[in-house]
């Protein structure tokens, strides 16, 4: 069982619905209440710093004693992961050291599936680095990549289970053969099986983090338009399939064009929050601070606090 190391809040939704703004408002509001908060943009096309009007060449900026803001550089994490693979290969296959492995490994960054793996790699690093934070808020990338990120651990887990079984069968047969030949099999553990177990542990941990309400929750951000609502439906179905926790649906830029009862009737059991359309774009800390004083927003923040 994972000990409670703060809560991860993920904000998903169709592009342009205001995920980043809602995530930023949530972060500021929780930090104002005295919690230690980190807000992280997982979107390859970041605009988190723009929302806060931060002008910095650094990827991490401390906004106050209680709040840090980071734009995750997926390319950096991908490169760092591939570098570690390259080093291991160079160590294991000594005769390859004369070849330029870097060149061959470099091309792998374009392999399908590695983008979401880089996100998971970055996510695990953030969990570790900011483990003492009360809240880690993730502004997620566009839906397709975000859902692939959430699907990845379960998919990897299925493969790992099968490969572990197969590897164990191979090792069992190897053992019998060694016994018949009265050879003493090398008692040291099988590197491949160890590696599979290590990956399984990591994958299980990530799944656990996603599935336990005290550790994580997902908010889906939508607007009143049909397309963003349709995307909410797709996101919700995928999240349910993976048994992750949906904390609620946030209807941003609400203009009262559709009746609240009609909107909420799709998922009556879920908590819904409606954030009215602001007069001006909510950009810069001053405007963000203004918006969080709205009663509807405070109600939503209080609902987050009930999780803790």
């Amino acid at each position, binding site marked *: 069982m994972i000990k409670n190391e703060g809560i991860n809040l993920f904000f998903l939704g169709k592009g342009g619905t205001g995920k980043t703004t809602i995530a930023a408002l949530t972060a500021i509001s929780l930090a104002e209440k005295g919690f230690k908060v980190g807000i992280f943009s997982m979107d390859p096309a970041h605009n988190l710093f723009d929302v806060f009007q931060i002008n910095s060449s650094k990827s991490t900026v401390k906004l106050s004693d209680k709040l840090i803001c980071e734009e995750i550089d997926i390319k950096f994490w991908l490169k760092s992961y591939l570098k570690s*693979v390259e080093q291991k290969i160079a*160590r*294991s296959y000594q005769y390859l050291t004369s070849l330029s492995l870097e060149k061959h490994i470099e091309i792998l960054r374009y392999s399908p599936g590695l983008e979401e793996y880089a996100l998971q790699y970055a996510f695990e690093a953030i969990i570790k680095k900011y483990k003492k934070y009360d809240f880690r808020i993730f502004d997620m990338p566009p839906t397709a990549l975000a859902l692939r990120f959430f699907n990845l651990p379960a998919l990897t887990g299925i493969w790992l289970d*099968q*490969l572990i079984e*197969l*590897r164990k069968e191979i090792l069992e047969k190897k053992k019998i053969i060694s016994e*018949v030949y009265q050879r003493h099999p090398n008692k040291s553990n099988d590197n491949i099986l160890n*590696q599979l177990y290590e*990956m399984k542990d990591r994958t299980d941990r990530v799944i656990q983090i996603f599935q336990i309400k005290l550790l994580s929750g997902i908010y889906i951000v939508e607007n009143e338009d049909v397309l963003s609502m349709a995307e909410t439906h797709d996101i919700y179905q995928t999240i349910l399939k993976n048994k992750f926790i949906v904390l609620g649906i946030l209807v941003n830029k609400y203009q009262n064009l559709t009746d609240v009862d009609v909107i909420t009737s799709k998922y009556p059991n879920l908590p819904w929050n409606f954030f009215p359309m602001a007069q001006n774009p909510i950009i810069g800390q001053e405007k963000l601070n203004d918006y969080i004083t709205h009663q509807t927003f405070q109600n939503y923040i209080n609902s987050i606090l009930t999780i803790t």
Partner: protein
Amino acid sequence: MLKKVLNSLRSIKNILTGSARSQAVDILEWEKTELENIFSLLVLGSFVGIPATPTSITLNLLPYMENEIQLMMDKVETASGPISDLFSHLDTP
């Protein structure tokens, strides 16, 4: 003389035991090799055009799979054997 006979008997016994052991594990060895090949294909399948594991699993295991890659390459040669054999027969005037 007696020593020579005993040595001969001992070496005959060793040959027979070795042969019996080899026979006993022949099928098991074949099974194990096949499983290893399946494992390699699953993990490294994307390299040979088979839809396979998430790339992260392949990359994480790759540093430890020297023997499996060797085995897979050997299997490729064996697999192409019968076909090339057939064609070489057909080619015979």
